Structures are given as C-alpha cells and as structure tokens.
C-alpha cells in the first residue's frame, strides 16, 4: 500500500514538463512595484513656496518611468551624502498618488536641520538623491475612518494634506476634507494660491493666523471654538504639525468629547534631547562582519551618531514606529522617550532597540542590520 503511493507520485512527476520555471509572478511583480526598497531619483524642478520652504519635484533617475503608487498621506525618505555623513530623512509626499504613476513625486521642505538646509541651499535641479519607498500609516482608511475628514495642519504639516486634497480631486480618494490650517502670518501660508483658488464642494479650507489679523482668516489658535465652528459631526481628525500643536489640539478635541479612535497624528522624528553639557560615549557598531567604534553624543540618537560616522545604517521613520532600524542591543544603557516607544513586547524581552529614537546613557555596543 505504502509503495503504491510512491509509484503514483513518481508517475505524476514523470508526466510533468521539464520546462524552465517562471522566474517571477504577477503578484510578486506588483509587490516589487509597490515596494521596491530604494529608488534613484533626480530633482527636476524647485519651487519656492515661502521664505524658508521649497517644493522639490522628483523624477526617476533610472529607466523606470513611474514611482510606486501610495496612499495620500504617506511619506518617503530622501538620502544623500553630505560631507562625511550619509543622511536619510522622511518627508510626507505633497503630490498625489496618480502623479506617482506619471513619474512625479513632490516633497515640500522647510529649512530646519542639517539635511533640510542642504536641500534648500545646496540642492539644485539635476541633483541626484536616493528615495526610500512610500510608507507610514497616516492615511485615510474607509473601513476605519469617517468619510468626513478634518485635517488639522500646523506650518509645514500641510504637506500630507495637499496630497490628500489632490487625491480627492483626482478621484483616487473619496471623502470630504475640512482643512484647518494654522500659520503665523499670511506670508507663512504654504500653497497659499493653490489653496485659496481651490473650488471643490468636497473641500473646505479654513486658515487660522496666530500672529496677524486679516479678513477672510480666523485669528488665534486652533481652539475648541474653531473646531466646533468648522468641524462636521462624526468626523475623523487627522493632525500634522509640531508636537506642541498635537498637545494643544488634542486637549481642545477632548473638550469636544472626540474619542482617541477618531484622532490620528503623523509622528515627528525624534530630535535631540535636552541635556546640559552632553557627554560623548563610545558606540561600538557591528554590521555583518564589520565592527566600527564611533562617538555618540548623549543628546543625540544612535542613528544620528551612525550617520555622522558615515555608516550605511537603516533609517526610515525616525520616530520609532516603522521598526526598520530594529537592532540588537549587546551592552550599555539607554533612554527611549515615551512618545517614541513602539517596540514589540518580545523586543524588550530579548534586548532589541530602535536606534532612531534611542539616546545613549553609557558606552554602548549594538548589532545593526546593513542597508
């Protein structure tokens, strides 16, 4: 009996063709198109939005004619060698999903740190950059969110909402948007003309100026009163802006009894922590068969230390949530701020960290995946 099944199987194998196997499949190709990892790109145009803000139009630098499709609200990363460092930063896409299929991504950048200053002051049309594929969970999901979105933007936090507004207009997303946009003065309004000339019944724009009174604008902050006045019933609230804005607006939303389920915010990168006279520790970094000994400043994350040293270490969200830099802690003590603590339960048990939001409290040794 047992030997029958062997001869039966042999027969089935005998009958099969000896053709070359397919090297790929449609589903695997779609996965690759949506998630290619890194994408070489070139700056095709630069537009000045305000004094310190520019929009960069990016096109593929390879033979690919398109960029990966994405969900409006998601971010990409930009990487470039600057001096001795290899820097990677996340930026929300300010262009629409359909434009990706035309080979266009746009990011809108405000002069802030080292990388953004380099972009604003040094990068030019023709400059090549490496992009990291779109990611992040700051997008509207029709199974989770209301079809009435209140988008609350502070300063440069307008960028993902520009993508969402464009997506609604072009038809790749289907919801109503009430944009409540906080800026200091009229001259700080990014996409001013675009927003003010917009005419679409699904989109309503309210601009709140904090340091200027002007006709057609709200004045002050995004308070419960402002929210009550403009936010439709049973809406989903999307927040993008500085951390101080999140704290303020979330308190205001609480006054209106909006539950956590209906409030989402885009996470900001972990910046430097406040330490008086920061010490410099020794950081030993293992990457595959190589070991590097580099300095790590107490007030900066381990990822910043590795970037300064020019190491090709993983960097994506820089806020702790994406897990791309998941690394083994071998020794040393460290701090992770509560708002960046998104490690998995087993990571604590087995000693894994996300260097992008980990500050050294001693000399440390870590094992980091190479990118």
């Amino acid at each position, binding site marked *: 009996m047992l030997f029958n099944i062997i001869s039966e199987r042999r027969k089935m194998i005998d009958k099969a063709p000896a053709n070359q196997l397919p090297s790929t499949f449609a*589903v695997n190709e779609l996965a690759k198109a949506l998630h290619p990892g890194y994408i070489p790109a070139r700056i095709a145009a630069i537009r000045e939005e305000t004094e310190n803000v520019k929009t960069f139009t990016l096109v593929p630098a390879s033979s690919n004619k398109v960029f990966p*499709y994405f969900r409006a609200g998601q971010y990409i990363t930009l990487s470039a060698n600057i001096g001795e460092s290899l820097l990677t930063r996340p930026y929300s896409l300010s262009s629409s999903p359909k434009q990706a299929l035309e080979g266009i991504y746009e990011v809108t950048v405000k002069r802030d740190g080292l990388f953004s200053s380099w972009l604003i002051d040094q990068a030019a049309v023709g400059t090549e950059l490496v992009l990291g594929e779109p990611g992040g969970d700051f997008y509207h999901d029709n199974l989770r969110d209301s079809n009435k979105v209140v988008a609350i933007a502070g300063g440069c936090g307008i960028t993902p909402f520009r993508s969402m507004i464009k997506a609604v207009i072009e038809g790749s997303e289907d919801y109503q948007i009430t944009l409540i946009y906080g800026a200091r003065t009229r001259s700080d309004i990014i996409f001013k003309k675009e927003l003010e000339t917009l005419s679409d019944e699904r989109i309503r724009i309210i601009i709140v100026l904090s340091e200027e009174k002007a006709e057609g604008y709200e004045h002050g902050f995004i308070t419960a009163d402002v929210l009550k006045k403009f936010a439709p019933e049973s809406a989903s609230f999307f927040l993008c802006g500085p951390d101080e804005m999140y704290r303020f607006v979330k308190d205001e939303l609480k006054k209106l009894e909006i539950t956590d389920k209906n409030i989402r915010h885009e996470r900001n990168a972990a910046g430097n922590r406040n330490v008086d006279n920061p010490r410099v520790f020794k950081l030993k970094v293992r990457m595959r068969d190589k070991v590097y000994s580099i300095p790590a400043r107490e007030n900066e994350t381990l990822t910043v230390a590795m970037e300064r040293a020019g190491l090709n270490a993983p960097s994506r969200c820089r806020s702790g949530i994406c*897990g791309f830099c998941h690394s083994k802690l071998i020794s040393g003590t460290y701090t992770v701020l509560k708002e960046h603590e998104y490690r998995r339960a087993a990571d604590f048990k087995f000693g894994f960290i996300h260097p992008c939001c980990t500050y050294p409290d001693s000399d440390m040794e870590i094992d980091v995946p190479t990118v």
Partner: protein
Amino acid sequence: MKQYDVVVIGAGNGGLAAAVKLLSAGKSCLVCEKHNLPGGFATSFVRGRFEFEASLHEFNGIGTPENPGSTRLLFRELGVEDKIEWVQLKDAFHLISKEEDYRFTMPFGLEAFAEAADKLYPGGKKYTEQLFSVGLQIREALEYLSISKGKPDPSILKEKYPDFLRFASCSVSEGFNAMGFPKMIKDICSAYWCYLGAHCDNLGFIHYVNMLYSYISGGAAIPKHRSHELSLAFETRIRELGGDIWYNAEVTRIITDDMGHVSGVQINDGTEIKTRHVIANCSPHVVYGRLMDPEAVPERALKLTNSRKLAGRGFTVFLALDRSPDDLGIKEHNYFIYDTCDSVRQYKNMGKLHENSAQATVCLNRAIPDCSPEGTTILYMTTLFTEDVWSLVTAEDYFKVKNEVAASMIDRFEKSTDTHIRDHIEEIAVATPITYARYCGHPQGTVYGYESQYWDGLLPRVMMVEEDHFVPGLRIGGGYGERLLGYPSSYKSGYNEAVRTLRDMEKEGE
C-alpha cells in the same frame, strides 16, 4: 572571502531551526534573511497602541513541560524552550457554517471532544473515539517511519499499524466514508481542513488525522508575546551558539562547481560567500527558477517543481477595536466561518476574488486578555485564495480592492456572530497575497507552500525525501518541505534538513 560550513537562506521558522541544529553540532553557519526581521510569517507588527500577531492562530504539539508535545521536545533539544512563554488555549474551535446552520464550540481533549460530538449528533461519541484510536496509531506509525528512515519493515507495519496501512493512500473524504461517518460527524471532524489549505478530496487522511489528533489530544497554545517571541528566541539562540545572522541580505544566487556541488552563495550587494552546503528555507520555485543557474538545475528537479500545485495565497484583516470583547459580544478565541462544510465547494468559492469571505478568525484577547490595552480587542480574520486571482489587480486599484475584500470579511464576521464591530475599528491593517509576496518572496503570495495533493501529501513526501534531493550540498526545508505547511511542520522540516546536511557532510568527509 567569508566562508561557512553552511549558509541558510531565509530566517523563517525552518531556517531558524536548521541554523540552531547545525550550530549545536559545532558547524559554522550564516543565516541570510532578505527582510530586516527574523521569522518570516512568524512575526508581529505595531499600529498605534496595538501589537498584532502577523500569522499564528494556534500552535499544536506544545503540551506542558511535564507532558511535552513533539514541538516542545524539539524546542527543548534546540535550547529555546525556556525562552518562550506559552499560553494554553481553552477550546478547539467554534464552527459556524451557513449551509448547515452550524454554530457550536468543540473543546480540546479526546474525551471532551467525543462527548461534545455526541451531544451534537447522538452516537457521535462512537465515531470520534474510533477516529482517535486510528489517530493514535497514525502518530505511532509516523514515528516508526521516521526512525526507519524510509525503509520500514513491512511485517512490523502490518502487525502493529494495520489502520495506518489501510488509510495510507486515502483522502480525508475516502477515509471518513470508509469509516461510515454520518455527514455531521464528517463536518465536525474535518473542520480544521482550512489549516492545511486543501479540500478533503485531496487532503491525505494520514496527514490530516495526524494533525487533528495532535490538536485534540494535546491542545494548543500560543506564545505570550506573539510569534515575534518565537523568532527572537531562535535568533538569540543562534547568537549564543556563535552563529551569524544577516538582515536585508537577500541571496540572489546559489553557486555550484563543475561537479554540480554547491560552492557558495551571492547576496544582493554582490558579496560572495563560500560554502559547500546550503539549506534553503524558501520555495523550490525560487531556488530552481531564480537562484540557480539554469544549466545547474537537474531535469528531475524541474519536473518535480512543475508537477506541484501552489497552495493558498494568504489574506488577513487585522483589527484593533476600541471596545472589550465582552462589550462587543465576541466570545470565542478561534472561529471557523464557512459557507458550507462541503470542503470541495468551499475550496472552489475561495478561488474568487470578490466572493471569498470564508474565514478562520482569532480574537487574541480570548487567549491573552492583556494583549491589548484595557477596553480594547485584537481580532484577525484570515482566508486563503485557492486561485491566483490577485494577479489581475493593478497598482492603482490595489488599495481599493484590498479594502473591498476586507469589508466583506468584516461583514461576514458580524453577520455570523451577531456582533457589531465596524464602528469600533481604531486600527486596521490588511495583508494580501501581495503583502506576503513582499515580505517572504513566495510565488503568488502563497503562505502554504505546495498544496497537499492525494499524490503529494505528507506520506509520499516523507517517504521520498532522498529521491527529491537533487543538488549535492543543497537541501530545501520549511513550509515547502516534506512536512508541509504550518508552524510545527516548518520548524521540524528545517531541523530535519539540518540533520540531513550533517549526514551529507559526514559522508563527504567534512
């Protein structure tokens, strides 16, 4: 050039178990993983204030430290048992089927299961007891087969394992018919078929009943901290034993020498690594179709691979709800929700993109109450697509289509269980065959390896392991291996391929 005794391709369950076994035997070993985490499907992910289990529904063969199951014993041997905290599950499953109007829970434990079957179908006890006695014999016969290394003594088989021989070439349907099972008993006893992804006319009786027996006799468990805990336990063990594990390191080529023997691998950044032995924890379609030079692939390997059928392509809706399971009325840990208990017709329905809402659904809080913040629930619903229907979806339609299918899964759950969850979704993630293809590279996003066919099930594969070995120095283990899919099977398969590799090395005088 770096050199290792063995390179393991893929840090999935099979690859991790293989690496630990090789390192324990004193061999040097490098594990190359294309993703940035170990585990393959055995992982977890974070959304907001929730950590989701990526794939595991339940794990059989664990038992207790005092009364260990086969997988616990394997973990003990590999030195990972103490690194994992297990939570035992209470009931086996809650079966809901529209056509038969079923809605009942079956418990673990041979006796309890038989009693419950008797209550549902008077006289059912007798049938299930009969099945379990065959199940025990199957388990013992498989153990005998594995120690006899494919050369069993026919007289011992005849004398000690007559039922095993009787059912050896039967499908589940044939076996249940031969035992004279009434329909309802068949339905109860075949409810787990979706875990193996082949319908009961194709699924080998031995394979299925062995699994059923393992679940019902030994119960099931899940790791306290999601399957990421399992993967990190193995990862940590590899480091303890001096092994290397490289992430973001996709093997792009398996290199062979003039004699056709493995001589090295190349990874995606162009680095070549010298080795005489490779254990591939990935699909033979990938190994023979992409990683090896075409002229190095033996004809029989192509014929075997072409003869096989890719099994179910995965689809899962992960939900975090902002109410407790009690508030929502979600009572069970483990639901099987079918259109019909006729697995052949159900299987066929699962081949359609927009008509498939059959599901195996887990409420994690019913096993681990504190798996999410107080007053919340983690629920995940899984189905399989039995055809390559996702190949028709374009990038532009993808997000829309995946939410349409997810919506029908959610509706189906609500209707089947009289619950209302739609308005309580705080976090959602949807994994499609494209997602599984992305992370693990499996053809068409299959999560179940090669489908169990009547001619290509557990038994013929186990008996033909050496016949299926074509390239000196190359072994293939994991979910595509001889033990087929599933957590315990893929660990065991990886372990077995490591043992075979050690034997190969010994023969070659290494």
